[in-house]
């Protein structure tokens, strides 16, 4: 047999090999340790964030300000630090943005999966993919210059900086998230049923509506949940075009403030005041929502479809 190295006896060769092996083994555990360290660091940052938010929000509980923070009026000069209007603002904005984006998203997915001409699917999905790369601040900027005067012109009672404007802009931002998630799910389903249903004589449109739609319900839910959480987490669009009045809105044309823009607006006030504590409470609420969303998503789908479609603020 050919032996390792050149002129050594088999026994020495064996020793050399074992030394080489011990070296590899040590490196192996070292590397594993390093990788584990990196993972712990990455994942630990979640705990660190939670820890910091909680620590800074702690005085709310220890000083008994909880009831004041969870109240309906934000008037710092009168000592009223309620963030509930902002919570309502966040919720209403996210819900309406979803209300616009979700049907649009479903329509687009339907279009790409049988309702529209096949030749337009490629360009359409290309455009949707491209939309993920448009910076949020650009949506905000164009909206301020373009959409705000438009809304003001159409509705004289509104300043243009309103729930409506923000919801429309935001819906554009979360649209790709919804479309790509549903699209991914439909693709999976499509691969399973296409041949079978074509063999039954269904048209692509019929396949989509009566065969694939019921099978894709997980994706539909996941897209709704994730789109909602993206809308809730947005800061910049709300901050730029929603008007930021700390009130519970009565109409779509009212100015509203979200929890996220509340943080941005108030962050640099006096660090002992309750205004300051209120932003950490807002942060905690947002953090809590993000955990809830993730737990929901976990139930709904495997992780595989997530990374490519995410979008942050």
């Amino acid at each position, binding site marked *: 047999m*050919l032996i*390792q190295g050149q002129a050594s006896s088999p026994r020495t060769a064996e020793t050399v*090999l074992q030394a080489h092996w011990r070296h590899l083994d040590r490196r192996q555990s070292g590397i594993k340790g390093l990788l584990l360290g990196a993972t712990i660091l990455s994942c630990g940052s979640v705990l660190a964030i939670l820890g910091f938010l909680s620590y800074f929000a702690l005085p709310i509980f220890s000083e008994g300000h909880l009831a004041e923070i969870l109240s309906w009026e934000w008037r710092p000069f009168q000592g009223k630090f309620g963030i509930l209007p902002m919570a309502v603002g966040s919720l209403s904005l996210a819900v309406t943005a979803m209300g616009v984006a979700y049907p649009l998203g479903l329509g687009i997915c339907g279009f790409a999966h049988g309702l529209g001409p096949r030749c337009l699917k490629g360009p359409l999905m290309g455009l949707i993919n491209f939309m993920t790369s448009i910076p949020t601040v650009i949506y905000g900027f164009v909206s301020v210059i373009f959409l705000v005067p438009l809304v003001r012109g159409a509705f004289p009672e509104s300043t243009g900086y309103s729930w409506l404007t923000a919801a429309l802009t935001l819906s554009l931002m979360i649209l790709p998230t919804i479309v790509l998630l549903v699209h991914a799910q439909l693709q999976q389903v499509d691969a399973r049923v296409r041949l079978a249903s074509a063999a039954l004589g269904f048209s692509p449109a019929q396949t989509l509506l009566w065969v694939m739609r019921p099978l894709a319900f997980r994706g539909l839910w996941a897209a709704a949940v994730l789109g909602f959480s993206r809308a809730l987490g947005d800061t910049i669009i709300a901050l730029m075009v929603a008007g930021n009045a700390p009130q519970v809105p009565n109409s779509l044309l009212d100015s509203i403030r979200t929890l996220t823009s509340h943080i941005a607006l108030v962050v640099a006030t006096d660090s002992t005041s309750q205004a300051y504590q209120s932003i950490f409470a807002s942060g905690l609420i947002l953090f809590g929502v993000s955990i809830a969303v993730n737990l929901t998503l976990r139930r709904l789908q495997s992780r595989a479809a997530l990374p490519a479609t995410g979008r942050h603020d």
Partner: protein
Amino acid sequence: MGPKKPVDLEPTVLVKSLHVGFAGREVLHNLNAKFNRGWLAVVLGRSGSGKTTFLRALNRLNECFPRSATRGSLKLKLQGEWRDIYRNAMPLPELRRRVGMVFQTPHLLPGSIADNLALPVKLVLGVPRRNIASRVEWALEEAHLWDEVKDRLNAPAHTLSGGQQQRLCLARLLALEPEILLLDEPTASLDFRAALKVEELLLSLKERYTIIAVSHSLSQARRLADEALIFRDGSVVQRLSREDLQAPDTLQALLEEIF
């Protein structure tokens, strides 16, 4: 370097009451077997009878799959020394080097033909750079591939034909000086002519190694086997000698058993 003289039958693999399960479902039950150096054993059986799992138990590759569990005793004679590989284990990569495996489809590494050989030699054996080329050549010669590829060692490995790829995989094993060869339907993805070449190669190798091959083809087993093991539902139900395999009446029984 030449072929060793076959001593009598030197046992090198002893399997006693082996159980293997995945995620709580047992695939191999109470399996017993013995294999010898210089002896080519063929494992036959329906799909799902646990043939591949058995091979993977021998180089502990089952552990790459989720929630695998192995019980029983599996002893290999490596470097002239008996070891129970699930208890008195040598390091896993070392075991896998000594117990080489060829898969149904050629599992190429990324890169060129030469890379496919050189990378394992360099990483696993730690062979110095200056000795690699000669070892690559030797291994390719062993696998009857050298003449076909010597002019394009740096071409991407996937440009080879299926049969060549499979022989490349064998060459890659041989370069690592294994003692036991596990072949998982090595000719399943090949056409007849390419399959014959691989078989020829196996026959030329069998004197020096312990070879255990899973096969899907009875005729192949008859061409190759010194001994055949028939698997059913995760255990060995029958053991046939070379003579048994050639006999027409066992053949009929076997056809019914397997297919």
